[in-house]
């Protein structure tokens, strides 16, 4: 049974196909309004999440399907000690496809190995969140018309940010992609990502701590949150936190074709005044996430012979 646990479970041609489907859904929503009629998506969310769960549920409703929802481990059978494997087998009896979020890394993999229906990983701890990456890719594609020949600036917490690692992995498979890694020393991209992904494939990249200096050369700026809890001392956090707040003043140095992305939720790393800037694409990114989830649900249900 085909499932999607990590962005690398999808080939480049499959991602391109998903983007084509998403673009077609946007252009002709009525053509898709009944495609999943009488089909059920089970959203199994064992840790808090608002946007991802709502996005999956909205996606299924817009395809004409229904949703079975479990939120919070406290109210589910997991609280009684049921294993992920047993939960996946049980839910397979009720639903046609599963979207699962779990605090433990690898939980979605276990579910996929045991379910009789496709499983989509909606986030497993700090490990993987492939549909966020699909949202990021569609946003870059729609804003620029291509995923090739693009300079992507990644800013903020590049050490712990799973969305950053997945985006690098996904974008590295397209030609002419270059990365500018903008972060404080304490939150630099881990060496294994640089070695296993960037250096192994010969992808050009540069590292800097200076957001303002990097801005003029970027096509995409992918902002992430610098979190207080990542620092060993308060002094370092206070010294660094304001360097990575994007403001209209800093944006004056950026090109007019720049697009600003953020996986959200933001705290203060993008000033609210930037929302009015035509280069801000982070709320479009939310919308694109729903369309890519629709495309992915369709693809997996078709492959499973359920459509």
């Amino acid at each position, binding site marked *: 049974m085909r499932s999607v646990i990590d962005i690398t479970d999808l080939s480049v041609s499959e991602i391109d196909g998903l983007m084509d489907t998403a673009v077609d859904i946007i252009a002709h929503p009525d053509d898709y309004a009944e495609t999943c009629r009488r089909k059920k998506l089970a959203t199994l969310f064992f840790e808090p999440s608002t946007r991802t769960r709502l996005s999956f549920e909205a996606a299924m409703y817009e395809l004409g399907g229904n949703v079975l929802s479990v939120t919070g481990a406290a109210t589910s059978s997991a609280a009684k000690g049921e*294993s*992920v*494997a047993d939960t996946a087998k049980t839910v397979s009896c009720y639903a046609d496809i599963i979207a699962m979020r*779990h*605090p*433990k*890394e*690898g*939980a979605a*993999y*276990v579910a996929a190995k045991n379910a009789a229906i496709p499983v989509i990983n909606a986030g*497993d*701890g*700090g*490990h993987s969140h492939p549909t966020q990456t699909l949202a990021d890719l569609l946003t870059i594609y729609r804003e620029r018309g291509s995923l090739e020949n693009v300079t992507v600036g990644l800013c903020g917490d590049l050490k712990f940010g799973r969305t950053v690692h997945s985006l690098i992995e996904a974008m590295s498979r397209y030609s002419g992609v270059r990365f500018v890694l903008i972060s404080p020393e304490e939150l630099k991209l881990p060496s*294994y990502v640089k070695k*296993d992904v960037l250096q192994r494939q010969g992808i050009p990249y540069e590292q800097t701590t200076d957001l303002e200096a990097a801005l003029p050369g970027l096509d995409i700026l992918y902002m992430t949150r610098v979190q207080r809890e990542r620092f060993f001392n308060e002094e370092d956090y206070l010294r660094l936190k304001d360097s990575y707040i994007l403001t209209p003043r800093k944006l004056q140095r950026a090109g007019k074709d720049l697009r600003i992305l953020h996986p959200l939720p933001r705290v203060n790393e993008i000033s609210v005044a930037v929302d009015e800037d035509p280069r801000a694409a982070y709320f479009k990114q939310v919308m694109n996430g729903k369309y890519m989830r629709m495309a992915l649900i369709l693809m997996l249900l078709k492959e499973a012979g359920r459509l």
Partner: protein
Amino acid sequence: MNIDSIQNGIVIDHITAGKAMQLYNLLHLDTLDASVAMIMNVVSRRMGRKDIIKIDADIPVDLDVIGYVDPGATVNFIRDGVLTEKKNIHLPERLVNVLRCRNPRCITSTEQELSHIFVLTNREEKVYRCVYCETKNAN
């Protein structure tokens, strides 16, 4: 047990000097109801020094474990005092319940019945990663 002449059993030869004890533990040879001889740090023309393990019983051995610990080792199967088969060992693609994932956020840390599975992701550097959380094994 005469360590020079096994009648029915297995000789693991060409073990890198000093690794025999690790193999003894990972192959659970201490649980066997058979004699086991560990010959350590002997002179070898090919290797300079090497270890040898002789098992005086015809038991199934996990070649993947031997491959993980020491891919240069050889395994000789002895039947009626005669060498019947000689196997060269390679680094295995997959290890099941040989290594344990130490990532406290991994699903294997809470679901005890799951097998600990590692896959080879970099042959040159002998890197194995947990199949669930992709954490690298700390050698």
